[in-house]
């Protein structure tokens, strides 16, 4: 959760200060990602790391971003609030951030997988889509006749 | 009547008052008093820590003057004082304490330890635990008027000699003069230059004075040994003489505890204020100099330093006076470290000097003064207490430093008195 400092005076200074704070957790997470990637390539097992489950400060975040870098794919999902899915500069390593309708962070993950499950069209949704498409075509036909 | 444990404890009970209670309540046993004590510093013996010397009195206070302590002793937790305790404490209360009061000045919570030692000696003396030499002195002083015995004849001879030396008549027992001059036995027996000096100085200054046959002894063994009944008797002799002669004041001579006894303890011992003033000779000389009635000529060029007597400076408040006088007569005056209020004791005061059992402690304690004198390269030590003077002579000799000259300040002023002006 982001800390919401109401006082702008303090807020700015604090944000500046916080961006330099590190917990030292970035390095172990990066090692975990390395191992997960090896595993993915070896037997296809995907791994998800919950960044909300361990102390992770702005400094750690910066290190993670700097090492992984930017990749080729970025997607914004509108799922009762925004979700951001990006492939990092290391193919197979994805960053997934979920936000609520107010823009507050809900959860943050690193997924090591070929394609994050959430990007795929879900069978249930596709079923709904099929029904919806059929209905629309029917409606379209009705209008033309 | 005989001294007993019960009389001693009783005397201690009489001594405990609000200051004592506040002191014992406040002590946090930090041990800083030891760092101020010449006997601890020069021996390193933790037994000699000043506040520890009062432990027996602390027990009386705790067991009998606090509700909690009373409750504790009812439960059998209060340490009762035994004859053996008192014997053990003799070394602490008499042999290794001159009541110099350095500890009193460094105690962070403000405990007047020296004052309490004085009180504790009341109990020690009443229970028969005072050093034999002091008991003898007390008996001689009570019976013959001076701790050194009957000195009347010797005094008369010294007066005669002084009259002859100076050509100034000294009238004994003369009523209506300004001052009654007292002397310490030491000055009568050992330091003969005092009387002539006084005669010349007072003549020049126009001060009238006399000496009483009934009370010429300034010292007070009662104060040293710690017994107020004896101290009262001895003070009464002097006060009686002064009142009989109708003098304006008493001059306390160069003696530390005498000044304490006459000036500060005296009125409380006899239970009434004086109608006359008590002035220390150095105080008076300084006053005369300020009034222009005391003029000197010439200066002592030797490298000299000043030894502050504890009872006169630290515990008597006479600090600047001797230095102003010294500046009149010396041009190579150098102060030792800690000089003035925090001066180190010579190790002979408070009856320690008369106590044979304390000879070794006294010798060790003097190492401090030895280092200080050596540190400034002193050729001469001036002081304003005859007993300090005596101790300096004794210890300088024992420490093979007898090339250093010693002198009383009054004598020195007499030496440089400008007789013509």
């Amino acid at each position, binding site marked *: 959760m982001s800390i919401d400092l109401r006082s702008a005076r303090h807020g700015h200074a604090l944000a500046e200060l916080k961006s330099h704070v590190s917990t030292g957790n970035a390095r172990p997470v990066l090692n975990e990602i390395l191992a997960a990637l090896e595993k993915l390539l070896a037997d296809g097992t995907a791994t998800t790391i919950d960044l909300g489950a361990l102390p992770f400060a702005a400094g750690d975040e910066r290190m993670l971003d700097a090492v992984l870098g930017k990749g080729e794919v970025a997607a914004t999902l509108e799922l009762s609030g925004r979700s951001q899915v990006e492939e990092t500069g290391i193919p197979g390593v994805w960053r997934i951030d979920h936000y609520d309708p107010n823009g507050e962070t809900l959860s943050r993950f690193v997924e090591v997988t070929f394609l994050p499950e959430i990007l795929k069209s879900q069978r249930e949704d596709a079923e709904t889509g099929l029904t919806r498409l059929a209905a629309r075509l029917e409606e379209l036909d009705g209008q033309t006749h | 009547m005989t001294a007993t444990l019960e009389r001693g404890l009783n005397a201690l009970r009489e001594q*405990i*008052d*609000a*200051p004592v*209670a*506040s*002191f014992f*309540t*406040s*002590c*946090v*046993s*930090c*041990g*800083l008093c*030891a*760092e*101020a004590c010449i006997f*601890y510093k020069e021996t*390193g013996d*933790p*037994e000699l*820590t000043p*506040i*520890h010397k009062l432990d027996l009195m602390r027990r009386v206070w705790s067991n009998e*003057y*606090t*509700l*909690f302590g009373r409750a504790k002793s009812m439960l059998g937790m209060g340490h009762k004082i035994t004859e053996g305790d008192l014997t053990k404490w003799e070394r602490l209360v008499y042999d290794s304490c001159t009541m110099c009061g350095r500890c*009193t*000045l*460094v*105690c*962070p*919570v*403000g*405990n*007047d330890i020296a*004052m309490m030692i004085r009180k504790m000696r009341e109990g020690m003396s009443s229970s028969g635990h005072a050093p034999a030499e002091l008991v003898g002195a007390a008996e001689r002083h009570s019976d013959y008027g001076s701790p050194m015995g009957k000195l009347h004849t010797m005094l008369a001879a010294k007066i005669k000699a002084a009259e002859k030396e100076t050509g100034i008549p000294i009238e004994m027992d003369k009523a209506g003069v300004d001052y009654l001059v007292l002397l310490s036995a030491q000055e009568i027996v050992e330091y003969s230059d005092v009387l002539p000096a006084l005669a010349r100085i007072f003549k020049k200054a126009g001060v009238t004075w006399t000496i009483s046959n009934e009370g010429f002894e300034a010292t007070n063994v009662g104060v040293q040994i710690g017994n107020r009944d004896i101290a009262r008797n001895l003070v009464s002799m002097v006060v009686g003489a002064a009142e009989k002669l109708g003098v304006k004041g008493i001059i306390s001579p160069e003696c530390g505890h005498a000044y304490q006894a006459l*000036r*500060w*303890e*005296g*009125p*409380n011992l006899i*239970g*009434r*204020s*004086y109608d006359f*003033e008590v002035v220390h000779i150095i105080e008076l000389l300084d006053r005369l100099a300020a009034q222009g009635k005391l003029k000197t000529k010439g200066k002592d060029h030797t490298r000299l330093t000043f030894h502050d007597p504890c009872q006169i*400076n*630290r*515990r*008597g*408040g006479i*600090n600047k006076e001797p230095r102003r006088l010294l500046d009149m007569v010396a041009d190579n005056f150098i102060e030792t*470290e*800690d000089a003035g*209020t*925090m001066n180190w004791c010579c190790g002979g005061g408070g009856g320690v000097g008369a106590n044979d059992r304390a000879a070794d402690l006294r010798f060790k304690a003097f190492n401090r003064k030895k280092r200080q004198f050596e540190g400034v390269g002193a050729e001469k030590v001036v002081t304003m207490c005859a007993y300090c003077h005596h101790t300096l002579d004794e210890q300088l000799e024992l420490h093979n430093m007898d090339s250093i000259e010693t002198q009383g300040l009054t004598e020195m002023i007499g030496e440089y008195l400008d007789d013509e002006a």
Partner: protein
Amino acid sequence: MNNPYFDLLMWARGPGFDIALTILIGGLLLRVVEIVVLSRKKDLAKPKGSPVLQGLKTIFTRSVPRKGLIKEAPVTYIGGYIFHIGFAIAFLFLGAHIALIDDLIGIQWPEANKALIETAAALAVVALIALAWTRITNPVRRALTTFDDWLVWLLSILPLVTGYIAVNRIFGDGTLMMAIHMLSAEALMVAFPFTKLMHAVTFAMARYYNGSIQGRKGAES
């Protein structure tokens, strides 16, 4: 269902505090009045200086050590200063303590920030440990030290350590540690009138008496 930690905290804030404060106030008054009632004889010697003024002055001036004395017992002096000042800062300038004082006597003052308070508290703890060390190693202090001294030492260090743990949640349940902190302070309050902690009050009396005795003679104090 009850939270035993909360019950302990409420006991510490409620009956525990009531008992501790009652004993502290009652005991303090008892000890001080007991001393004052004992009184002293009027001094008949004609004063040379002002006993009252110098007595009052000495209450403050005695806080400064005599020249040269610090180097004779550096740990005792410096440790003593650091402990007393550190304890005072931690006690008097933490917001929660000010709220307590405000509730008790209705006066308040600005708080200091946590970093200062924690530095002060940590230094006070280090000073206490150093002082304990000299109590063991210095022959004078060792000889003087009694059970009372160790008890007072323990009672002084506990509120500092437990307070630090409670505020920073170093370990243990926060509520429990806060309760323990309060109880440790209450132990200090209860023991206060019966131990050498009394010096925190009677030092002023002792210094006054010392100053007035010396002041009457026109001597330094």
